[in-house]
């Protein structure tokens, strides 16, 4: 059986610098930072006292939270459901009436996360159970703490009856969720997949990284300067939160209903370096990364010269140099021949499990609307990067161009896990 082609017909976003597609597009175009000083982290003696926390108070889809009684849900469910509602409507589909509607067996939901719903544990379950008030937990606690809470609640709103699940692979979670959806549609097992990922803002999540000293602690007084991917002065990543959701659809189905097609997901690959050689629990190994990038390009059936732009994982750590090195080697393109590249984390911070989908949405927006956003704070490009590529290939001021036809988007996560996507303009 020939595999089905998979396209993106809808997107929804909750990010640290904007909530909603339109505001997000404007924010990234302007390089509007979502990173700010967080007094709570200072009070808790964090080295890194900054982060990116989304503001969902003005979301156009807030009535969904009220209608489905999500006021007691954690950030994961709230962010995901807001993004999913936006994506579903953006795809030209309608949200069914909860009473008088049938199950949609053609649509599945896979929303992943790095840590899930632990804010419900820390803020509610631990205090109530510890003080002997377990009966006050209420009935929704289970449905808001199960790891698949976001997927199950989106399925509740939309009546989805295909594969309903949640994935987790640390910082590659978002890209992985897209790949799982692509594979299901390619194999003819679903017509439509709602895929995405979300991550909460919490000192109980960020504390682990602060204690490892991998968070930036040198820019607490100038938060917008803190996330500095590809710069010589990069000093660790800046934690953030949010969610990105995409509607993936069988291309035939999208064409049949005359849906707007943002892009095709034409190549995908997932692997792990196995934590061998230079790969460790924390660091992606060179061999595994290169295999993964190469496989996604082969899966798309294109030549390495056809990649016009890379939406980097680039998190403002020492690994940025390795990432550029791996891309240059896999593409065999150096100097002025290297594609354009930027890092959304310079603007939003690192939303961990949510970053892969938020960045893929940013990549698609750029390709579809014809611009490349500025990568902030890399006025002092690392010399090991300038040894490999022309620094002008790093987008530092907004570029307007319609000549972006193929985009590469990769994510790398703890566990030596890699995920790579090739996005094609339609």
């Amino acid at each position, binding site marked *: 059986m020939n595999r089905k082609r998979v396209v993106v017909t809808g997107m929804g976003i909750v990010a640290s610098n904007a909530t909603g597609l339109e505001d997000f597009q404007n924010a990234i175009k302007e390089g509007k930072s979502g990173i700010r000083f967080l007094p709570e982290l200072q009070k808790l003696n964090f080295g890194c006292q900054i982060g990116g926390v989304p503001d969902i108070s003005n979301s156009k889809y807030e009535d969904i939270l009220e209608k489905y*009684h999500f006021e007691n849900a954690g950030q994961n469910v709230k962010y995901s459901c807001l993004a999913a509602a936006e994506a579903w409507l953006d795809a030209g589909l309608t949200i069914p009436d*909860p*009473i008088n509607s049938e199950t949609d067996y053609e649509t599945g939901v896979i929303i992943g996360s790095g840590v899930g719903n632990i804010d419900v544990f820390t803020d509610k379950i631990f205090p109530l159970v510890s003080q002997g008030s377990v*009966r*006050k937990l*209420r*009935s*929704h606690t289970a449905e808001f703490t199960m790891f698949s809470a976001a997927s199950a609640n989106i399925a509740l709103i939309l009546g989805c009856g295909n594969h309903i699940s949640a994935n987790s692979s640390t910082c590659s979670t978002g890209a992985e969720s897209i790949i799982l959806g692509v594979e299901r549609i390619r194999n003819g097992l679903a017509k439509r997949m709602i895929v995405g990922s979300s991550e909460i803002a919490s000192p109980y999540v960020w504390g682990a990284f602060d204690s490892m000293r991998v968070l930036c602690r040198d820019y607490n007084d100038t938060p917008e300067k803190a996330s500095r991917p590809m710069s010589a002065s990069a000093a660790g990543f800046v934690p953030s939160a949010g969610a990105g959701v995409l509607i993936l659809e069988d291309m035939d189905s999208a064409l049949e209903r005359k849906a707007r097609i943002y892009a095709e997901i034409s190549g995908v690959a997932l692997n792990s370096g196995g934590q061998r050689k230079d790969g460790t629990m924390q660091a992606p190994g060179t061999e595994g990364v290169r295999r993964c990038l190469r496989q996604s390009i082969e899966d798309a059936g294109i030549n390495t010269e056809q990649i016009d732009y890379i939406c980097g994982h680039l998190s403002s750590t020492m690994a940025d140099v390795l990432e550029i090195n791996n891309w240059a080697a896999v593409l065999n393109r150096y100097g002025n021949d290297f594609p354009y590249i930027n890092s959304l984390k310079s603007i939003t911070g690192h939303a961990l499990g949510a970053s892969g989908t938020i960045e893929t949405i940013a990549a698609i927006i750029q390709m579809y609307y014809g611009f490349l956003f500025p990568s902030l704070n890399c006025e002092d490009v690392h010399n090991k990067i300038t040894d490999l590529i022309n620094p002008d290939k790093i987008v530092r001021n907004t570029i307007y161009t319609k000549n972006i036809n193929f985009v590469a988007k990769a994510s790398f996560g703890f566990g030596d896990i890699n995920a790579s996507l090739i996005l094609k303009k339609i």
Partner: protein
Amino acid sequence: MFEKILKIIEKYSFNKDLVKNAKPESKIIADLNINSTRIVDIILDVEEEFNIEVEDTMLEKLITVGDLQKYVESKIS
């Protein structure tokens, strides 16, 4: 009292009309289409609203809106 109880039940309903038109003999789960797990929330809300404590053994006995109303009245009298 009846109206206050209905207002609590309505919070957990997708079909608000069913709840608005409820009678004392209406069964909370079967007639008002309330998800059965929400009974514990309705009880907790009733406890907070009327400043009473509902014994856990009562959960299975409070079937109709009227059952709940009579029980609350007996506790606060």
